[in-house]
């Protein structure tokens, strides 16, 4: 299933990649080239293999509800590009009513 220029533009937007138009065309070709090699998988009979593997997997180990985070060796302010009064700053969102997607 080949990807189009619009597809690539859409994916780039989803991934916040900001691609220039000249890059876009090259990428369409590169991605289609790569995806072409993936078609071989469609012919493989594989139903249920992943599920069988998953059921065999051991469950995760949990941690106790006790305070003890990994400490930071340097202040957040030293690591972050822009902070003020302890907050991380980013350009103001267009309107704060652009609510988070969750």
């Amino acid at each position, binding site marked *: 299933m080949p990807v189009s220029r619009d597809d690539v533009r859409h994916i780039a937007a989803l991934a916040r990649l900001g691609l220039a138009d000249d890059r876009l065309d090259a990428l369409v070709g590169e991605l289609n080239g790569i995806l072409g090699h993936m078609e071989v998988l469609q012919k493989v009979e594989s139903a249920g293999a992943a599920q069988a593997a998953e059921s065999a997997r051991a469950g*995760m180990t949990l941690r106790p509800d006790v305070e003890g985070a990994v400490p930071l060796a340097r202040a957040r302010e030293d690591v972050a590009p822009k902070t003020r009064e302890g907050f*991380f*700053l980013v*350009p103001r969102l267009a309107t704060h009513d652009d609510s988070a*997607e969750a």
Partner: protein
Amino acid sequence: MSHADWEMVVGLEVHVQLKTRTKAFCGCSAAFGAAPNANTCPVCLALPGALPVLNAHAVELAIRAALATECTVHERSVFARKNYFYPDLPKGYQISQFDQPIATQGRIVIDVDGTDKVVGITRIHMEEDAGKSVHDRFAGFTAIDLNRSGVPLVEIVSEPDIRSPAEAGAYLRKLRSILLYAGVSDCSMEEGSLRVDANVSARRTGETALRTRTEIKNLNSFSAVEKALHLEWDRHVTTWKTNGTIEQQTMLWDQNRGTVRRARSKEGSHDYRYFPEPDLPPLVLDRRAIDEARASLPELPDARRARFARDYGLGAYDADVLTATRELADYFEAAARDSGDAKHAANWVTGVVLATIKERGLDIASFAALLPASRLAGVIAMMKDGSVSSSAAKTIFALMLEGPGDAPAQAAREGLLQVGDDAQLRQWVDEVWAEHPAEAARLAAGDRKLLGPLTGLVMKKSGGSADPRKVNQLLAARAGT
């Protein structure tokens, strides 16, 4: 505007913060109110190379929430990444659960005008909270505080079984009560530990298919939910009636204006590209742990209310009031048991105790610290055995709020003890009988109307300290009636 022949269809998504000490995936404190970004670490800051490790107590509380709402708890569930960009989502994805959540298929029973109605719960899943974005503190900037990032949540999704704003309100109140009883969360919308998103659509009564729905966010109280549902449903129906179409979109409740409006258009689409979280193996629960959690669940509100009505002979209203919270129910029950008088205990708790709590801006826990149930029981017991009159009891209650000392001691100190001593009472009765022969004769002849006035005369003679019930009994016996 009434829309006869049209039906409201509502499903509610409730996010509840679990009452853990630390965050879902790291050992940072989950406590509210710290300085911005004080409770952060490499994991919840999403520093390169950091990894999540799940909090065992969060799992326990999620299981409790599921069991308390009669869900099936799945022994195997899987975490998934929900991918999107937002500055208060540091990893660029939220760790949540997608097609294999921890629990499914529960129910809550609500009371709709005296009839029970079941609202189904589709699923409960675990996920982490995002941080907070503050938009108006620094001009031109949005300020990000990640203290809340990583706090454990459960999302409880109802079936679209709700048919009115009132039902929505009843569902939320019942859900909250259940979760508070189960000790899962503080469930406070004001503090943000309980959040509601509402999905609403409309259809003609009798239609079985669901029409397009819209989602309302930014609801900040149960009454806001009810108002917003009404407004948005109205818009749906009006639109359908005028042959318009409803677009699937997100709406926002505006608290200031009391309106529901469209959210500004999103940048980018809602393709969350869910896939199983590779940093977390499946969550495998052992059956025994689930059974232990079930055994450790306290008696839930409905069951407790029914038992109060049955075992203590309480009416529906009183049973309701007394089981509003587990703490209040515990207080009442302790007072009832210690005093041996559930009816009076109910009166006292629903009356004077709740009034005092409200007046003084307390909660039941701080009231109980002031006046433990056992001390209250003392007053009630004295009333029951006639040692004090009910007005004296109220005085004693007020005194006990101010200082230590059990009820009998207070009563004695204040001279409030009723005389219940038979010999003394008989003497007073005899005196009055002698002093008022005409009335005594009429009483003896069967005119019960004299009982009251004669009792009053004995009370007067005793300076108010006689136990009026006993006086009454003695007079009646003297009259041979």
